[in-house]
């Protein structure tokens, strides 16, 4: 679990400080750096208390699992976007990849006659096809951004529209049903009493924390996002790192889309539509800078967790569905202001 991970890190860091020479200033600074990482934890606790007061169902295991499962798919998008943002780029097309990758798999594996399925491949191919489509989209983004030096925002905006259009095209604007068994598995399986998608989400976030904090690849993302010339001067192969980052991000988005399709037993033509705004909001609330080089995976995790807990509390409080959208937007703005105050630094 991410929480336990970081506490362990904090403990080793403290040990390192204690073992080293005494200066007290460093202890203070380290502690503050850690605190910034945990900036949203008080807010999460507060929401939990408020939720419990509003409706005692809130802290019931079923409800908590419900929150975790609904956020697990979008969570993978946040994970993917964080990797891209830290390297100083952004990828808007993740939300379309989230729909198109499982959409293509459904299109190729669903039998003829049921909707727009073609039945070209047997059901077992669904997962490899999904991930392959994700990887290809990532490579296409990387080719345009890294190889041709186009601006990431516009490239991925164009890609977002193209990919959404492709999904509408192959599905005829309709929803794919009767998905093969393999596509359903990740969204429906339960491991040790907890849905598989929660396990996957949490495991991948833990892997993401290690990737960004403890591997040369992860640190070179920070270096590139912070000062690309300095990164080059240090011998980092910046282009190769960016290719890899963009590809990993798209594969993660495809996996997230697969999990959602499995849970809903369908792929709608609009799957993921509009999700990118929540993803950006979660990352920024969690302390990831839109200018690159700054932010942690744990912070991004707390960001998305906070947003979904608030949504859940609103639903439990009986807020009419028509108003949820406006409240969601307002909550994002409030959360930004709060994180600005607790984080102490301007969002850039």
């Amino acid at each position: 679990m991410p929480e336990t991970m970081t506490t362990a890190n904090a403990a080793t860091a403290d040990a390192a400080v204690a073992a080293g020479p005494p200066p007290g200033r460093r202890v203070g600074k380290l502690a503050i750096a850690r605190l910034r990482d945990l900036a949203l934890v008080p807010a999460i606790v507060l929401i939990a208390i408020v939720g419990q007061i509003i409706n005692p169902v809130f802290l019931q295991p079923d409800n908590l699992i419900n929150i975790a499962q609904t956020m697990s798919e979008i969570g993978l998008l946040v994970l993917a976007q964080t990797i891209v943002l830290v390297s100083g780029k952004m990828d808007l097309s993740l939300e379309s990849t989230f729909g198109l990758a499982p959409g293509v798999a459904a299109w190729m594996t669903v039998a003829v006659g049921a909707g727009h399925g073609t039945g070209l491949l047997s059901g077992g191919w669904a997962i490899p096809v999904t991930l392959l489509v994700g990887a290809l989209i990532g490579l296409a983004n990387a080719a345009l951004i890294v190889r041709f030096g186009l601006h990431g925002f516009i490239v991925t905006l164009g890609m977002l529209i193209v990919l959404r259009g492709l999904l509408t095209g192959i599905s005829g604007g309709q929803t794919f049903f009767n998905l093969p068994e393999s596509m359903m598995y990740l969204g429906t399986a339960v491991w040790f009493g907890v849905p598989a998608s929660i396990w996957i989400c949490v495991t991948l976030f833990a892997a993401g924390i290690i990737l960004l904090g403890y591997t040369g690849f992860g640190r070179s993302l920070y270096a590139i996002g912070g000062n690309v010339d300095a990164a080059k001067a240090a011998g980092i192969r910046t282009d190769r790192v960016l290719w890899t980052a963009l590809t990993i991000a798209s594969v993660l988005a495809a996996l997230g889309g697969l999990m959602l399709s499995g849970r809903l037993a369908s792929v709608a033509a609009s799957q993921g539509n509009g999700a990118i705004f929540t993803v950006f909001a979660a990352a920024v609330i969690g302390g990831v800078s839109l200018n690159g080089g700054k932010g942690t995976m744990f912070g991004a995790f707390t960001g998305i967790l906070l947003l979904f807990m608030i949504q859940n509390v609103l639903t439990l409080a009986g807020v009419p569905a028509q108003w949820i959208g406006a409240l969601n937007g307002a909550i994002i703005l409030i959360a930004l202001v709060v994180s600005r105050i607790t984080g102490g630094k301007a969002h850039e």
Partner: protein
Amino acid sequence: MNGNGQPSTRSSPAPNGDGRARSGPPVAEAIDVSKRYGPTVALDRARITVHSGETHALVGRNGAGKSTLVSILTGLQAPDAGQIRFGGADAPRLSDRDAWRQRVACVYQKSTIIPELTVAENLLLNRYDRGRGGLINWRGLRQRARDLLALWSVDVDVDSRAGDLSVEQRQFVEIARALSFGARFIVLDEPTAQLDAAAIARLFDHIRDLQQQGVTFLFISHHLQEIYEICDIVTVYRDARHIITAPVAELPRDELVAAMTGEAAALQAARTRNGPAGPAEVVLDVSDLRMGGFYDDVSFQVRSGEIIGLAGAGGSGKTAVAESVVGLRTPDAGAVTVGGHRPRPGDVNAALAAGVGFVPQDRHQQGLVAGMSIADNATMTITERLGRAGFLSTRRRDTVANRLIDDLAIKTPGPDLEVSGLSGGNQQKVVMARALANDPRVLVLITPTAGVDVRSKEFLLDKVDEVADTGTGVLVASDELDDLRICDRVLVMFQGRIVADMPSGWRDHDLVAAMEGLTVDA
């Protein structure tokens, strides 16, 4: 704590004791190096020889070829002809960055630090300690960074965020990083430009310590005073050529300045300016202007028909003063009066309305919109005169533009050409045309002839002369002697203050010395 598979030699070879010995081949040498950029000769069979343990100064005015030599010496560019040698052996291939890093390092004015990462990570970027499973061992890394800074006696906390360091600490960290690659020859490119006096003193102490430990420096500076303070040998470049190399102690200041400016320049015929005849109205009055960090206590007046020069090296504050006059910067205190009015400080529009025309420092950044036509660029400041109720009359615009094009002899088929299609000299004429479009009472020019060819330069300066004769007061902020030669008076700024006031007919020598902060006895 060094280990975990990292070769120990990379992080901390012991400094050798007999630093200042002059035996063996030179640490670095450039032999007859030439480099061209298109038609510009940046280096013409230039040479330099740096011996072990010395601190070698490289001086020259802007465009002398210093930066080109640095980029060739540090392996960022290949010379067109000539040779670079380190310790008597040929330089490595350009692509072999590791080999270059082991021989030479440069601390540039522009930081190569990543602000969001810690000092430790910046020091050892991409050279991490690996622990179990190939993951980064932060504890080991921090310890290695701490050892490294201690070895070179840099007192900086390795856990602090690099962006929080002062300029001085940042330079120390960059020097330590350079040394950690094994380089014992370090180029410092104007290291003191952004430092205050106390920080400069600490930097120099540190440089002297490192000299004792056998580190060789090539020191580039605009401040000659500093060269006399810490350098052993000085090499002067001028107009892309090597002029002289001599021990600092044997080269008096006036000879050093003479080598930088060249005697040929002193022989050039001085322009004769009559200046305004008799007492003329004051069109620009600057009194007690102050802006923290840029300039202090600046006062002067420009009369109708007068050309005043504002001279000074980079960072002297001359540009900031000129930009304050035109409203690009807001001074902290003091007043700018233009023809009896006091435009709101820091408001370009108010300054233009008061009758200021100006040529900004960088025509690409502030002077022109590259994708717009000559007519649009030249009339940008006077759009309200070109039509009614906010609509432009293109006919009237083109009439005005054609008049300006004729007036300034801009070589173009017509007013509709995009300015990006013009040569540098003609682009600068468009900027000048814009400055003149509203018939200014005060014309402010910041480095007006930077990067233009000789013919255009002559033309532009003659034009300034002509404009002054019609009664406009002109302020020229520049460090180009040719620009300053047309002035009736030159005010010299150094470290934010006006330090000299030289009437027309000054000697190059004296002016350059004053700009460098030296007083040379004539």
